[in-house]
């Protein structure tokens, strides 16, 4: 479980290195014992190199992993001071890991905030095992993974000119994903191969992730037509993690 994974090491996985699931190494951080013990068994074919109850344990161990699968809610009676939420995501990203949030959280602004904190993907725990496996592998390939409500927010940012470096094909793929269309369906309507579409999505992911991480809550609020301060409790602030980040996204 341990290794010398210095900053940046886990991200050295190339975009196509995850095509073979057995080559990708995952590490799981979840406070639920049942999840830690069962996920690797249920997602057969994926390699989980470690499982941890808290991010602190994970960072202490520093396993060699391509993707850390991170639960958002990590505080419980056994670890009341555990880092969680966007703070945990930022810490994991700062340690050089690619992060896939695996959560029951469904509020789209909270999920978008996870991407703004540096997560590459957010996957619902209510997803089927096949969907979960595919999503984890997509994150390993560097693809942005988000449910349609979050993709819809990104579409708003693009439509309103906040995210601008997108070409026509990338915008078409984004529009399709925001409507829930799969690559197979998009392939039929756009007359492009699925691998080409995935390429557009990967390129788009980089631009969008960078924009989200560089934008202030005020920028996003303005773009989405929200009131001032509406995102303050969810959105990560620039620079060091705030103490409040440790408890964000837990309340209703």
């Amino acid at each position, binding site marked *: 479980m341990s290794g010398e994974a210095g900053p940046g090491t886990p991200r050295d996985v190339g975009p196509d290195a995850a095509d073979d699931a057995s080559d990708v190494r995952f590490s799981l951080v979840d406070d639920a014992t049942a999840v830690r013990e069962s996920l690797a068994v249920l997602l057969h074919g994926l390699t989980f190199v470690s499982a941890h109850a808290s991010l602190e344990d994970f960072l202490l161990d520093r396993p060699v992993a391509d993707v850390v699968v991170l639960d958002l809610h990590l505080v419980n009676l056994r670890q009341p001071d555990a880092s969680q939420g966007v703070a945990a995501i930022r810490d994991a990203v700062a340690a050089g890991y690619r992060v896939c949030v695996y959560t029951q959280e469904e509020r789209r602004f909270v999920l978008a905030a996870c991407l703004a904190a540096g997560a590459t993907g957010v996957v619902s725990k*209510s997803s*089927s095992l096949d*969907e979960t496996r595919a999503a984890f592998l997509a994150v390993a390939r560097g693809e942005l993974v988000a*449910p*349609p*409500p979050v*993709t*819809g*927010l990104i*579409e*708003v940012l*693009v*439509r*309103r*000119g906040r995210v*601008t*470096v*997108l*070409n*026509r094909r990338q*915008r078409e793929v984004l529009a399709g994903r*925001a*409507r*829930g*269309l*799969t690559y*197979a*369906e998009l392939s*039929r309507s756009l007359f492009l191969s699925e691998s080409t579409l995935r390429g557009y999505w990967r390129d788009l992911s980089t631009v969008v992730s960078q924009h989200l991480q560089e934008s202030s809550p005020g*920028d996003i609020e*303005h773009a*989405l*037509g929200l009131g001032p301060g509406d995102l303050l409790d969810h959105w990560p602030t620039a620079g060091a993690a705030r103490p409040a980040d440790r408890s964000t996204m837990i309340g209703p």
Partner: protein
Amino acid sequence: MEGPAGPRARDVAARPDGRTAPAAEPARSAPQVERAAGLAVAGSRVATLAQMAPSVVAAFDASTRPGLCAVTWAVATATSAGTIVLSVVRRRPPGRRWATVDVTVAAALLVLGLLTVSAGYRTGSWIGFQGAYSLSVACALIGVRRRGAWLTLLAVLVAARAVYLLPALGSGVGFATMAGELLTLLCLAPLAWAGTGAMYRIAQDADRAREYAAHLAREEEERRARTAIHNGTALLKLLVEQAHDDPTDSRTPSQVWVQAASELNRMRAYLAGQGRRAAGRADEPQDLATLVETVAAEFADLPLDVVPDLARGVLLDDEADDVAAALRSLLINVRQHAGAARVVLHAEQLEDEDGWAVTLHDDGRGFDPSTTRLGVGVRGLVVESLAAHAITATVDSVPGLGTTATLRSVTRSRTPTPEHAVVAPAREGRP
């Protein structure tokens, strides 16, 4: 009047709640024109008799055959009375049969006038009533709508009038007077006939327009009935099927029961004749994003993601209720048939055109559109209903991949602005 009368359509009238209902009394235009024409004929014959009356004694005195003269006056009076009664009772001008009798009598009176009226009284005097009488008979031919029959009867009258006048030529009646008498018949009678025909055609057009409006109103009412009961029927079917499969299973999603109750209220409101929208909302436009969210909230049992952000500020007017009903119908279809793990309801204001679109996608089992006909709900509540608002509805599906339904309303094309261009220019700083 012998014109073709179309099937009687039930007239419709607008009710205060905006619905249409059959009026108590049919109000068609053609019968009213017929009645007016009948009264005109009766009135003209009464007027002729009234004009004849003061001269009756003088006529007998001036006639060399007073007995025969009295008979002609009596026959003229009786025939006119018959025409008057017939026109009033039947509420229309006399038809071809009575007109034939009337013309025959008038022609006979003209011929007999050769014996009873001296040449000097055949024009410009009511002692020789036959001339004016034949004119009133000619004008009464407006009830004969077949051109050939009318021309024949008019020709008989003109010929008889000519026979009546010819012997008087040179004995007090000049050629010009005689020609004027005949031209009076040849001008006034066609004028009356053509004018009545024009009015009758206008009335028929009005009746056809009214029937068409009634037809449209009936279709609209039927569509509204389908709208009111279809979704409720689908929900009842869902509940009945579940009860049939396992009567002890009480796992029906509570949302289905809630929605069934909502549809029940909708059906009861329809049966009670209440307006489609609640009071006070009739003229209020609805925000498309809010409408989509409201409808989606009724389907909490579905794995439904709602993406309405790009539709905020898009306002719907009269079409709002039909759009909501269409979305409900589509979502009920998803619930019943798709077996979807993820459903996405996306709404947007169009980027390059003035308009909006709503997309409903599910990743369910799908179907082959080339071999599968759309159901009654999708065809009636979605495609046909929205077409009335110029909203196009398309359904695309691939077996095994899922189904995508798109509602799209385009008011007019728009030239892409820089912000809407395919490749948006980079911006510096905050906008």
